[in-house]
């Protein structure tokens, strides 16, 4: 048996593969396709303090090797999550990250406080959703604003705190340093890239909100560069993501310096893909004689 265990922020993952927020629901649907216990962890759909119906109009649009989305954080709210979704997740024998968005500092704080008393393993603070005011992307652009929200949340948060960064940040390295200084236990990056699509026949943007978030294999080379730079800039562990489609992509992120990786859009292409990536990493380690991921992390 290949040992893929990895410990970050005081939490032990059985392997480095985490299903990314918003691409795996709360695990119920994919659980029909494979046992979720195969995964290192699952990050919940982005949660807001109150239930949200999400955006109207087009929500998903296909681009070259990518998709744009403007779901608008449709979610059952923190209470709904705790009542209806968490009990199922707790039974899956995998690490649970609660992905939390918010439009005000207060909202973040109330949400995180409610989660303090649950069995979730980590908070993933989403300061980077481009599709709603409440996603908190405003917090994710300037390092100083991010510092304030992270520091405030840190103060009341009794769970390990991961901050999810936006690739739209002005300066990724400053942003990462700021979040680390404010007390983040780890960082995950990247969220989606702000992007635009136009229907030239109706002469209107495809999305009601004009811009939307780009994800998928198209962004991988940029996301990988950001993970590499950020891993040099800070000492806290990093969860890398952005366009990972197979175990080779996952290994690239680890070699760029990531401790764990997340699989997002790829889950839409094949419901078993996260599990397949776990198996692929194990095989790669075996073939290459790698005993522990520590040997290759940040090796380039």
């Amino acid at each position, binding site marked *: 048996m290949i040992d893929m265990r990895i410990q970050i922020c005081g939490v032990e993952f059985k392997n480095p593969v985490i299903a990314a927020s918003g691409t795996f629901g709360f695990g119920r649907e994919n659980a029909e*396709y494979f046992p979720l216990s195969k995964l290192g962890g699952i990050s919940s759909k982005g949660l807001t303090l109150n239930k949200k*119906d999400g955006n109207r109009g087009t929500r998903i649009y*296909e681009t*070259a090797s990518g998709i744009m989305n403007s779901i608008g954080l*449709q979610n059952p709210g923190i209470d709904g999550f705790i009542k209806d979704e968490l009990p199922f997740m707790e039974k899956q024998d995998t690490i649970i990250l609660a992905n939390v968005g918010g439009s005000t500092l207060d909202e973040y704080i109330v949400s995180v406080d409610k989660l303090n008393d649950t069995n979730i393993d980590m908070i993933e603070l989403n300061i980077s959703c481009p599709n709603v005011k409440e996603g908190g992307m405003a917090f994710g652009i300037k390092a100083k604003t991010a510092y304030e929200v992270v520091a405030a949340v840190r103060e009341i948060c009794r769970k390990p705190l991961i901050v999810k960064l936006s690739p739209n940040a002005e300066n990724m390295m400053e942003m990462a340093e700021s979040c680390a200084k404010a007390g983040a236990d780890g960082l995950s990056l990247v969220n989606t890239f702000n992007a635009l699509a136009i229907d030239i026949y109706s002469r209107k943007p495809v999305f009601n909100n004009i811009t939307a978030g780009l994800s998928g294999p198209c962004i991988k080379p940029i996301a990988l560069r950001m993970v590499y730079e950020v891993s040099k800039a800070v000492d806290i562990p990093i969860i890398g993501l952005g366009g990972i*489609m197979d175990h080779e992509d996952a290994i690239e992120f680890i070699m760029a310096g990531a401790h764990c990786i997340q699989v997002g859009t790829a*889950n839409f292409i094949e419901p078993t893909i996260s599990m397949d990536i776990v198996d692929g990493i194990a095989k790669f380690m075996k073939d290459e004689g790698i005993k522990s991921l520590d040997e290759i992390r940040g090796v380039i």
Partner: protein
Amino acid sequence: MKQGYRRGIVHTNIQLATDVYEMKLMPHGDNNRDTSLRIEDRLGFQGNPGQFYMLRGWQLDPLLARPISICNISNGMVTFLYEVVGKGTRMMSELKAGDTLELLGPLGTGFDLELGGRLALISGGAGMAPLIYLKNRLENDMDFYCGFQSEPYYIDEIEKGVDNIYITTEDGSAGHRGFVTELFTPERYDTVITCGPTPMMKEIVKICGKHDIPVYMSMESHMACGIGTCLGCTVETTSGILRVCREGPVQLGKEVVFDD
């Protein structure tokens, strides 16, 4: 456990009319040899009327698979009826016998098969696909109203087992010139079932609403995952936001809040 994407082999892929094709697929041999699969997955395609498969007849360009309704299943072979409207369906139309493609399914919630009484099935264009499978599985008294833009197709398959067939074409090239909604008389039916362009379905829901006749519709939506995780395919209903790929595609018409 359900299976992820599996392979199918094109048995036939026949053009029925301008931009309309019928494709029959066999399960791929690999599935049959893989003894870890449940016996029914090894033997053939499954699914109920109104359910669909996500299809990918290409690698990662386009990135996403495309939802296509089951038009029939017989001896484990599945039939799809599809219209070429863009890149994905065009690539499907170029597949030849023996080519393989990837499929995920059956997906979604199909039609209630316990409907009693006299039924009207109303289709617009390739929307006939799920209705054909439905009628092939029902014994009810049924009339089939099918609207086409121009040349009608697949009439032989539509006719089988229905009492009356009503054809309309927008350009008058066959049957009644105009829209199906003009021919259709709701009072004669206990339940109406429809699939086609949204404006057509909306009109039918309106007409039937006046007579208090229930309408089941199979909805369209652009899909990413097909299994309920992306929340890209949602529709607003009187009981909240529903996923077309999961709680749908079949919905009771009066519960749907149509966009404007």
